[in-house]
């Protein structure tokens, strides 16, 4: 039996970064807003206290803040001639469950995409010719430009109290910043973090090989900060427990540290936890959402009517819900028709281990404490002779030295276990670092999400099925950028280096990144996108979709900065355009 509840103005599916932004902005506009979250409520006090949060086994290894796959997972295969099998435990990526979402356990590596990332197809065709793009590569322009998003990037950065060095303020290149970034209206709200020894060595080495290193923009506060919502953060202490952990020190930007103290007291906002949204309900025309259905922790089913339904779950969960609810035509790769599930993409990473003579104290760090170069990202270099599209940044991060998962490998020839391994751990743990590459992944006709024909979740719904592999374009690009990383690593004058190229097929384990994108791509053409430039469903105009699920392909940067900017961009359109005249914001 389904219990029908009293209608609200806005229902948000999930209560992480994007839901928190939308909730605050829409509640400020006077709307009755409800967020429905599948996980538990959690906050800095008491859940993230430093007396227990710095527990590598519990949080990083066993995934104490991650989603529980017993109820719901996805199935995976490399190509559609294979049978997809369930991801039995987390590996390649770590989505969250619970209030704050993955914004609780991220590192805080905050980037803007390049201006040319947003018009990659038209830009690539103009610079290199139409034939430069492989036939099965389905990249497309976003339908929104960097210039349009700039004020919203700024808004997210000032929400978070980002620590960084501007590279381009209103067209003027700033010394020490990233000279390749798009113009920004003003500098970051806080100066860069202090530098670790290894990042200083990287900086020197990168300059020696003719590159322009800069401090990475960090959602870890270099100084105390009060944001525009009046929420106070404290200075980061470089404890080295950011990613996979929550911050007990109010120093890593998250919904808890930047929005919830201002949002939760509002009378016109409420949330329900331990409730799984299973459907977006549509009326008989299929053109209008009437609300959502959810199941609570006791297994009771509820119908929550709403005027506006906004999907704010993690990337692939939004796509799963769209497919289960019949919103947008499901993508069929064989017929090359449909949109929902199309253009799934990911990230391609590699690393070079550096073994040095001096003591690096790797356990002192912060999630976004890094020094990077951007010469080989996006279209910052001539791709013509290289024969691939895309690129990536090269960075030396000192995120921490947790001993189980952050061992930084061992020099070539070290035994995998036994006395030889032990000796290497003793000799190298304090004296190693890792130069990482972080590259783009283009979208392809064969990389997509759909519903699995065999496996089911706890409610009997089909699991999401992921079909994805690395393509030659990405492997070639990654090799190119990794070789550049190796040049910097060598210039650090190490005892030895070990290059870890990304090779072969994509694998569902071990961990790579939680940068899953696409499946609900945005764009200017309803034939190739699920949502329009305002993140509004083309088919059901009172449904909006947030998060990296709307990326049409994945540029060479971490996604959160753009996820935050798009949330502010979309909610501004809702407030200033949609509420005045509910209906499609872009005419087809």
């Amino acid at each position, binding site marked *: 039996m389904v219990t029908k509840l009293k209608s609200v103005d806005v229902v948000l599916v999930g209560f992480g970064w994007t839901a928190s932004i939308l909730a605050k902005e829409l509640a400020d506009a006077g709307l009755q807003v409800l967020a429905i979250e599948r996980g538990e409520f959690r906050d800095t006090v008491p859940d993230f206290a430093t007396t227990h949060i710095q527990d590598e*086994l519990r949080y990083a290894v066993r995934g104490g803040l991650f989603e529980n796959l017993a109820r719901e997972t996805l199935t995976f295969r490399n190509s559609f001639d294979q049978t997809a099998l369930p991801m039995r435990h987390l590996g390649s990526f770590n989505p969250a469950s619970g209030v704050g979402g993955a914004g609780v356990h991220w590192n805080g590596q905050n980037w803007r995409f390049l201006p040319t990332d947003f018009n990659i197809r038209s830009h690539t065709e103009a610079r290199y010719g139409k034939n430069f793009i492989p036939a099965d590569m389905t990249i497309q322009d976003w339908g929104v430009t960097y210039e349009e998003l700039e004020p919203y990037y700024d808004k997210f950065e000032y929400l978070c109290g980002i620590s960084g060095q501007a590279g381009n303020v209103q067209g003027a290149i700033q010394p020490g910043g990233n000279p390749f970034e798009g113009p920004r209206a003003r500098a970051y709200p806080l100066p860069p973090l202090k530098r670790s020894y290894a990042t200083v060595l990287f900086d020197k080495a990168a300059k020696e090989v003719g590159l322009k290193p800069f401090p990475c923009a960090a959602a870890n506060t270099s100084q105390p900060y009060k944001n525009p919502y009046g929420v106070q953060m404290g*200075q980061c*202490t470089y404890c080295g427990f950011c990613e996979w952990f929550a911050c007990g020190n109010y120093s890593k930007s998250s919904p808890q540290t930047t929005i919830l103290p201002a949002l939760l007291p509002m009378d016109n906002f409420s949330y329900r936890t331990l409730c799984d949204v299973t459907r977006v309900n549509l009326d008989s025309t299929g053109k209008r959402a009437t609300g959502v259905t959810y199941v609570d922790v006791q297994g009771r089913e509820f119908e929550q009517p709403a005027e506006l339904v906004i999907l704010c779950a993690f990337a692939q969960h939004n796509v799963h819900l769209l497919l289960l609810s019949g919103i947008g035509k499901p993508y069929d790769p064989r017929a090359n028709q449909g949109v929902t599930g199309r253009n799934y993409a990911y990230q391609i990473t590699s690393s070079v281990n550096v073994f040095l003579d001096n003591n690096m104290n790797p356990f002192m760090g912060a999630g976004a404490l890094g020094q990077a170069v951007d010469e080989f990202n996006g279209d910052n270099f001539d791709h013509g002779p290289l024969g691939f599209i895309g690129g990536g940044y090269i960075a030396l991060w000192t995120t921490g030295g947790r001993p189980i998962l952050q061992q930084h490998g061992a020099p070539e020839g070290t035994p995998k276990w036994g006395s030889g391994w032990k000796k290497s751990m003793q000799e190298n743990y304090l004296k190693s670092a890792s130069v990482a590459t972080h590259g783009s992944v283009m979208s392809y006709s064969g990389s997509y999400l759909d519903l699995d024909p065999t496996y*089911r979740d706890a409610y009997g719904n089909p699991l999401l099925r992921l079909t994805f592999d690395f393509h030659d374009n990405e492997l070639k690009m990654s090799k190119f950028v990794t070789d550049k990383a190796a040049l910097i690593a060598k210039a650090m004058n190490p005892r030895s280096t070990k290059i870890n190229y990304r090779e072969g097929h994509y694998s569902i384990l071990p961990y790579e990144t939680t940068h899953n994108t696409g499946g609900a791509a945005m764009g200017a053409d309803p034939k190739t996108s699920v949502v329009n430039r305002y993140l509004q469903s083309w088919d059901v105009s009172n449904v909006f979709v947030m998060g990296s699920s709307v990326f049409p392909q994945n540029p060479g940067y971490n996604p959160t900065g753009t996820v935050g900017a798009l949330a502010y961009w979309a909610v501004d359109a809702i407030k200033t355009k949609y509420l005045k005249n509910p209906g499609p914001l872009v005419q087809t």
Partner: protein
Amino acid sequence: MSENTRRDLLRTTVIAGSAAVASWLEPRAAVAEPVSRRPVASRNFSYFSAPEIVFIDAAIGRLIPADELGPGAKEADVAFFIDQQMAGSFGRAETWYMQGPWKEGIPEQGYQLKLTPAQLYRVAIQGTDDYCRRTFNQATFAELGVGDQDKVLHGLEKGEIELVGAPAKEFFAMLWQNTNEGFFADPIYGGNRDFAGWKLIGFPGPRYNYVTEIEQYGKPYALPTVGLMGRNESAVRKG
């Protein structure tokens, strides 16, 4: 809070209580004195049988041996750590998707066994000892010389040894992963005894503030090792 943490907290509370009682009977200095731990042999194992513990101690003693650099996994109580993990939610695969149908996949599809980690240990320990008895004149793994033990472990690692009921490679990967965890996890989980793993590599434990030290390039960190329960972890675990 995990079951282990809660249990250890309870133990700490009990210890603190008895220490308070003792304090007016004895000179104050005695209170701070670490109490020696119970010998490994008398630990209350929760999941593994005595012969299984003998196997695990022998195997992890080769994976991370005691040598001139210090204690190995056996001395760091990693067998007890693995036992507690198998008795808990990880051993039962509580957060894993464990619905069928079950099929063998390609390596890129990851773990596809119907066995939970705890079941995998049980089946594979039996299988490895059976293999050793067949191959080494009725000797179990623990009864072999270290050279033969290393050969068997390499055979499991490469999947060259066929075990009845479980793939050797998957078992070795799980055993190595858990050994590594037990050597380097906070001592509240029962391994890393006396911070053996952390002291080996120079990790000072979960300290909170490096605002000054992070800019002292190359300088060794001076303060002693701490765990989540403080500096002297042996005091946490007694009783």
